[in-house]
């Protein structure tokens, strides 16, 4: 599904990611660990093709297609969806219209999806304008629901979410990845969803209480430090801290 080969990325003149190799097969969810500033978000933004992130080496293959130089919207149309950690506010664009942009053209479907995330009251509000951290997370997941992508990129789903909503966010991500959501989508779409993959950034690992991850990777100083069983990795990080990971790289 997603194959990253020897990827090197710069912002301006500064190298922020190097020698990134990562393979996430169809139906596999990978959790990406790493301390603040290690390059986790940059990796997601690069996969999505944001202009600030210049790929200077290596390539990104999605569904067998080299997407390294494709514009962002084409990657989205191929089936990559992203949940941002700090998305910008869009004045004058209602959340319900954003959901339409994402692909749910039917008003009642949009409402149904919003209800699942306790966001019905937000449908007529401008996207992210005055949203709290947790509301942003839920609104991002709502957009992903409508988009129904094959590959989910999710940036720190647990940050800024209060305890009351963490399970809602966690369970929503789990259903999104599994593709067994109960909202009414055409059968064709549901079938496709069963092959979804995910790349989820977590700083704390809390999200693993809700989702079943198949693999884990640690990003440290702009490089993948280790890959393996996500629960094992989390235990290791909790016990020894991220610093130990740098040894792995060496």
């Amino acid at each position: 599904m997603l194959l990253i080969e020897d990827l090197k990325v710069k912002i301006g003149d500064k190298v922020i990611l190097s020698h990134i190799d990562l393979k996430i097969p169809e139906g596999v969810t990978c959790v990406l660990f790493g301390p603040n500033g290690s390059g986790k978000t940059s990796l997601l933004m690069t996969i999505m093709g944001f202009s600030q992130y210049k790929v200077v080496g290596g390539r990104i293959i999605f569904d067998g297609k080299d997407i390294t130089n494709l514009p962002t919207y084409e990657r989205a149309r191929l089936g990559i969806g992203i949940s941002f950690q700090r998305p910008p506010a869009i004045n004058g664009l209602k959340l319900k219209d954003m959901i339409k942009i994402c692909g749910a053209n039917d008003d009642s479907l949009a409402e149904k999806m919003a209800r699942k995330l306790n966001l019905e009251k937000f449908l007529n509000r401008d996207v992210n304008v005055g949203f709290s951290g947790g509301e942003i997370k839920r609104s991002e997941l709502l957009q992903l629901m409508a988009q129904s992508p094959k590959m989910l990129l999710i940036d720190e789903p647990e940050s800024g979410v209060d305890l009351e909503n963490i399970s809602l966010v966690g369970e929503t991500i789990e259903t999104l990845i599994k593709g067994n959501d109960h909202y009414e989508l055409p059968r064709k779409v549901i079938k496709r969803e069963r092959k979804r993959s995910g790349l989820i950034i977590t700083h704390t690992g809390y999200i693993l209480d809700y989702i079943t991850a198949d693999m884990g990777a640690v990003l440290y100083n702009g490089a993948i430090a280790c890959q393996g069983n996500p629960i094992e990795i989390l235990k290791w990080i909790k016990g020894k801290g991220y610093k130990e990971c740098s040894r792995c790289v060496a």
Partner: protein
Amino acid sequence: MRGLDNDKKKLLEKKATYGEDIDLNQFKIDVSEKPYIEDVSKISDQDKEQMLKAGVDLSEKERTGTFIQKDQSVVHCKVKQEGLEVMPIVDALKKYDWLKDYYWKAVSKDLDKYSASADIFPSNGYFIRSLPNQKISYPVQTCLYMEEDNVEQNVHNIIIVEEESELHIITGCTTSPFLNSGLHIGISEFYIKRNSKLSFTMIHNWKEGVHVRPRSATIVEEGGTFLSNYIVMKPLKSLQTYPTTHLVGEGAVARYYSIMVASKNSYMDVGSKVVLHAPNTRAEVISRAITTGGKIIARGRLEGEKPGIKAHLECKGLILKEGIIEAIPELVGITEGVEMSHEAAVGKIAKEEIEYLMARGLSEEEATSTIVRGFLKIDIVGLPSILREEIDKAVAETEKDMF
């Protein structure tokens, strides 16, 4: 000059405080009379289309009256509802002796050469009045149309909203599609009586060679509400206007919403001023300006004179390709207990907003136009949906040319 005494000659040379100075002598005052048209369906399709772009719908669906002035002649005037008066100002001045107490009372005829010219060379204009306790549900539409080249069109309008009544007006300003140059001077005086409400929506659809100098003022009494929507998105040569509202009665409210788009070679100097003379009055002045190559000066001024007043000013500008936007918000408080604020911003569309929408599958152009549409979308409190639709139509109509 035109056989006048010295005082008048002097006034006709009095420059306006703002905006490019225009030599009035280059325009004709005397133009041929245009014939009266009883049946608006007989108006040419070409004219109908021009009017429709300015919100004037000659099918007259959901309209309570229609007034059309071409150059200096009133060519159509009809009213369809009881409790509502629509007539040429010349006729109204003959019919109502008391109207002289409203004529040139809100706007000063000595303000500048443009008001002076409208006074010395009056042509016509409209008089619209809702009678006490009448709620006029659908809007009255008026159209000011410039047909001949090089003409100075002088229009003087008086709108009176009597006590406890409600009135909606949509005014479309437009021209013949072949017009090369002209000067439009529009004097508008609004009187909003106790506990009454007026929404006034003006859509401009001028042409590249037209200069526009509206001079308007509004007086709002106790508990009255004035809502002004001003949409000017089509190319023109120059526009300078600074309408003022005086909130003279306790609890009176004024809201100004302006949407301006200046294309290359268009110069717009547009302000809105509200003087809050009475306690507990409220004002909101909101403007959205976009340039795709022209220059916009967005002014706004709030003057708070009594305790308990509340007012907010917001000018936001977006430079899409090139061009200049100058936002000049002013607040003046002369007593304690006033609450006034302003917010001004000029910039370009943030790249991260575009990319955010691209990540949802929109191309760069689609993302940009979605953001621009959102920028121009102002939530207008108390505007009937039919007028909201007219504003949305005008925005959509211009959007095509913006990118």
